[in-house]
């Protein structure tokens, strides 16, 4: 199982849209795919029309009073399952702190489902915290949707510095441009000459599109209602590129 974290310190950059659409494409291709909605706001649970409620809450899960299998819900799409969000996730930091080896708790939690899924997508809450550290320990790849603006890029550097300091050797941090508006000079300039990072920006970027906002109305992954749109194509090429990058990683 490959673990892909959709993460950014900033909010509203397209993390949930990426997690939902990429996981849908993965499942459509035949991969057993799981999404974990770690964000207490529960946006991906909402998109999949699944109640943002986990029996026993974050406590029950992290204390292993419940096995992961018990809280997994099938979505309306074949081979695509979800662990819903729960409002108690807002205190996940505090819950995690109670444990020894608190930063690898999440990783150990997902071990039992390792053979059941080909891909696990973690839809992460914004901010940088003990939850994020857990995510970095568990993930193979951190996918960072980045709006081509100064502030957004600044948070990307924050993230990179943080990971450098923590010396995550296993982790591949892959930023890509999200919500790109080609009419804006700043966006255009930054996409054409992306800031330098160690693994570089992915070549696929996701344009700003109203179809993405429609996800909230349709409550469904984008390709189900806008299959042949430009934006669906953009997600498809992002998924292909991501897979190629992951295949290059050591198993």
């Amino acid at each position, binding site marked *: 199982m490959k673990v892909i974290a959709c993460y950014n310190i900033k909010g509203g950059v397209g993390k949930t849209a990426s997690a939902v659409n990429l996981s849908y494409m993965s499942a459509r291709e*035949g991969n*057993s795919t799981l999404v974990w909605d770690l964000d207490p706001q529960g946006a991906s649970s909402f998109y999949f*029309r699944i109640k943002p409620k986990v029996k026993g809450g974050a406590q029950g899960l992290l204390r292993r009073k419940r096995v992961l299998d018990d809280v997994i819900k099938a979505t*309306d799409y074949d081979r695509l399952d979800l662990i819903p969000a729960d409002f108690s996730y807002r205190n996940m930091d505090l819950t995690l702190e109670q444990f020894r080896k608190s930063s690898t708790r999440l990783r150990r939690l997902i071990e039992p489902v390792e053979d059941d899924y080909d891909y696990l997508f973690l839809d992460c809450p914004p901010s940088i915290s003990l939850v994020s550290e857990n995510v970095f320990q568990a993930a193979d790849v951190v996918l960072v949707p980045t709006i081509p603006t100064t502030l957004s890029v600044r948070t990307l550097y924050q993230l990179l510095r943080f990971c450098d300091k923590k010396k995550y050797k296993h982790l591949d941090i892959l930023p890509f441009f999200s919500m790109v508006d080609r009419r804006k000079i700043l966006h255009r300039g930054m996409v054409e000459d992306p800031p330098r990072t160690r693994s570089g920006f992915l070549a696929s970027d996701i344009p700003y599109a109203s179809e993405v906002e429609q996800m909230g109305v349709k409550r469904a992954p984008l390709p189900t209602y806008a299959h042949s749109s430009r934006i669906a194509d953009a997600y498809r090429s992002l998924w292909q590129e991501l897979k190629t990058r992951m295949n290059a990683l050591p198993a």
Partner: protein
Amino acid sequence: MKKPIHYPLANKDSLPHWREQLLQHLPIESAPAETCRVHYYDSFDWRLFQANKVLVWQQRNDDAQLYLQARRNGSARIAIDLEQEPPRFANELPPGQLRQELDGLLDLRAFLPVATIETRSLPFQWIDKEGKTRLRLYLEQHRLVEPGGRRSLLCKRIRVAPLQGYAKTEKRVINVLEKEFGLSPQDDDLLDLALAGMHKVPGVYSSKLNIPLEPELRADEAMRRILLTLLDAMEVNEAGTIANLDTEFLHDFRVAVRRTRSAQGQMKTVFPPATLARFREKFAWLGSITSQTRDLDVYLLKFENYQKQLPESLRADLEPLRTFLKRHHQQEQASLSKQLQTAAYRQLKNQWRRYLNSPLPQRPAADDACKPIGEVAPRRTWRMYKRVLREGQAITPESPAEELHELRKSCKKLRYLMEFFQHLYPTKKIRALIKELKGLQENLGDFQDLEVQIHSLQHYSEQMEQEGDMTPRTELAMDILLKGLETRMQEVRDVFASRFEQFSSQSNKNRFRQLFNPSQVLKKTP
């Protein structure tokens, strides 16, 4: 994914009636009916079945998918979108995981249609107030589509597809189906039903010989049993050879012919000489009409390997050879197909079968006909083994290639004798000796292959010149190829001595003696 649960319905049940019943008893919504066609594929020798997999091309209203998955439980599924009918070979699929997996499983074999099922289904969904589906249920009618297009009812059933995380809903539906409607679940696999409906038994083909024989059986009866099996093998591969579905049909067809000829020659003391002579001549003809096509098959299969032996800049220049080979292959294949549909071939088969099925003679003219096979077979095998040793020992580094070819032929005859009669010997021992022989055969086979290839390529090169296919660069490419093959041939030749030494080691000699000439062993032990 949770496993679906199937509830069989009676064939006479009306689906509209069931639809009403379900809607009355469960808070579910119905969706428009769907029709879908599912085509199952496997290789002629059931490789996917053996690997416990199924390859399916599913056509629905607006999409079509080709997928490979585990049989029955449906896990480990790899799928691609595929609008048109799948190609015949894995390597013609778009690159990716599916192609890689199938290539590994099927190698040279084509995938052939096994069964087609047409399904009409009425879908139902249990939807909660968020608009989320909690369970799916289908009223299904499956029909088998026979090759002529005729459809016959396979089964009617209710399929419940529960979703992970919605156990309460599942329980409630099961309760209604089982308690209120009195249905009981049954795990029928559609492909199994379809195969049974067509009287197809999966997994029955293998080109390996394993013929049950009792040592006290009359030798002529034993030989007839073996030869009938070989005739069946020929006939089984005949249609695929004529249609050229893949190269392995002709290959297996030829192996059956070669084994037949070898049995006729090696066990000639068992058959009436005049009858045997007549058939031997006809089978020789059968061998000869199939050889050209097979040779060209082999070169086409080796082609990419040939290209890899060239420097990259010259690889494309070898293409004219491929064009040439393909053109000639087409001609040879057409003439072979024609020959296999002639009266002469049909008569040969019929007469041979009639002879093999005719009553055993009371007082046969052939010396060994009435002797027990348990005595004749080891004697003949021992004789051939001694010949192999004699011929092998006479070979020196200076011996001409022909001597190696003679030895190769003797080894093949020995191998066939050992395989025909393997049932007479302890399985472990005979298998171990066959393996020893194989090691020697591989070396001799490689040598012969290389020599024939060199000879043929030289011949093709002249022919290409005449047919106007040759360019200077192609000629250069072929020259380099030939040089490479010659070097390889020398290497193979150099290995021969050590391979033969191993085969003819004292311990192997003892093992051969023990199986095929027990009298000598007995004589030596006091």
